[in-house]
């Protein structure tokens, strides 16, 4: 399996990009949800964001591919720069940003009216109408292989995506997201709705995928962050109504064994949250 994934590096993809976030403030209307975040998402690494519920980590994640804008009145101040381009520049079309920065959600949600094949190819068909069938076949296979799903579904590519188990559906969603070869992959609690075995399978997948992509994962499960990530950022919120802030971000090992701030240590040792 590992050999196959390595083969999957085709030209034009494979090198994850870095994101520089500077002084990012995320607002919903006049309510400040996330305050003054400055950090770097390192290329080809897995960055985990942890923190208790409601501390703004999901909001922050969504602001990285401009998905938070779906809510009326949402806006940001500050900059998010991907590969030298500020994704919040006035001339930047959010739709295109999302082709470069993909997202996988908490609930596996393959499109119910489409087959497994069509689900995987959904993003491709949007971006280029003129792909020939064999090229499409190849990309679909490569994406499904990359998501460790190919062997399980190769005989039923034309069946609906909804017929799979939870873990399989989530891997299908990952295949769907990677088929368009994003430069960064965002994952919002991708394993929360899955059983432990499926969770471990996805964590293995993430470990492998980082060779090709830059990955940012939000998780409320600290053990998962410790297992699966290279870098961890801890978000916290003082009181309800306050904005969330990035308290500390460092190599995962350091955060969990010897964090610089007491409050981080309190969180990772379970004293609150």
């Amino acid at each position, binding site marked *: 399996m590992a050999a196959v994934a390595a083969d999957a590096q085709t030209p034009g993809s494979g090198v994850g990009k870095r994101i520089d976030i500077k002084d990012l403030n995320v607002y919903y209307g006049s309510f400040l949800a996330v305050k003054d975040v400055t950090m770097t998402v390192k290329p080809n690494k897995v960055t985990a964001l942890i923190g208790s519920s409601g501390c703004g980590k999901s909001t922050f994640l969504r602001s990285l591919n401009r998905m938070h804008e779906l809510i009326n009145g949402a806006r940001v101040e500050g900059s998010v720069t991907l590969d030298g381009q500020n994704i919040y520049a006035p001339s930047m*079309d959010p739709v295109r940003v999302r082709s*470069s920065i993909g997202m996988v959600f908490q609930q596996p949600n393959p499109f119910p009216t489409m087959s497994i094949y069509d689900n995987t190819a959904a993003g491709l068909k949007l*971006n280029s109408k003129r792909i020939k069938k064999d090229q499409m076949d190849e990309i679909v296979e490569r994406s499904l292989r990359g998501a460790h799903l190919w062997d399980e579904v190769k005989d039923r590519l034309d069946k609906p995506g909804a017929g799979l188990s939870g873990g399989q559906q989530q891997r299908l969603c990952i295949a769907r997201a990677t088929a368009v070869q994003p430069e960064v992959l965002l994952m919002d609690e991708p394993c929360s709705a899955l059983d432990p075995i499926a969770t471990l399978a996805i964590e293995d997948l993430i470990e492998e995928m980082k060779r090709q992509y830059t990955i940012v994962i939000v998780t409320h499960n600290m053990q998962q962050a410790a297992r699966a990530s290279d870098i961890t950022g801890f978000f916290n919120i003082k009181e309800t109504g306050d904005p969330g802030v990035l308290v500390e971000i460092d190599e995962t090992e350091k955060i969990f064994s010897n964090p610089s701030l007491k409050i981080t240590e309190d969180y990772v040792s379970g004293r609150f949250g």
Partner: protein
Amino acid sequence: MSDRKLTSAPAPAMPPAGNIADAARGRIPAWGPWAVFAGTAVVLAAILSVIGFNIALLAVGTVLISIFVIFLWARKVEGQRQGLDRGVTLAVTSLFALAMVPLVSLLYTVTSLGISRMDAEFFTSSMRNVLGEGGGILHAAIGTVIITGLATLASVPIGIMAAVYLHEYGKGKLKRWLTFFVDVMTGIPSIVAGLFAFALFAIFFGPGIRLGVMGSIALTVLMIPIVVRSTEEMLRIVPDGLREASFALGVSKWRTVAKVVLPTALAGIVTGVMLAIARVIGETAPLLITTGVFSSVNLNPFEGRMANLPVFTYNSYKFPGVPPEPYIDRAWGAALVLILIVMVLFLAARFVSRRYGIELRK
């Protein structure tokens, strides 16, 4: 296992999809679409003033051409997919506006044509001994009140109790059949309901019979399914917790329904009834064939023909006397009154529902 060799084939002919540099294209300025609309309107108006002005053509033409122009412009500046997105957005918005045109036109027409008869005589006299000018709708209005009132009196208790049965007591076959047939009843064409009322009386009294109550029966057939459906909906909204709390206090089932559930749902039920009345009060077809035409006031629904607003309107318009203008005027006046009644009922129903109703918690 996985030995199907993946060719590291040359990348497909598309650009690598995830290249952020592509994302920084231009955007149409915010004032752009407005400018296009304005410009097109001006140009089109100029052209039309030469070849023959027509406001509808100006409106439709401006919209169609502007959408097309904006689509092309966006397509060039922002990309093909964005262009399509803008085009669709404009098209959908225009279609909505188009759907509102008949509403506005109709209300304007009826108001402007009916307003000439909004005088005291119109509301205080019938057509008794009236030929030509003058006259009014008193007999028709009273008839409508009586006929619709009777129908409401019949359909509301039956409808509410049937809904109570369906939701609180019903089981098994009777419940399933009843649900199914209430659904069927909602689809009965109004004229068929009229034919039924006619048939019912014709068998006993001969085919020439015309009575106010026959109209009421036809309207009852139309109202019952509406009342049942909306009452059922309201009963569904009342939380089960309320019923359980009442049971836990030792209250018997019938008292729970009668004194707890129904009062809670009352606002919604009233709203449903008002909407049902609004639906049937303008029904012409069933009354046309059951109540006959009459020019004086008749207060007895069980004897003789009875005038009512919809049939009066129809007959005044379709069979005007000579000269026709007063008859046509009366028709539009009556139509205006009908619309006003319906609008008031609609608004009142909405008001009751807002003010007194319990909200469905989603």
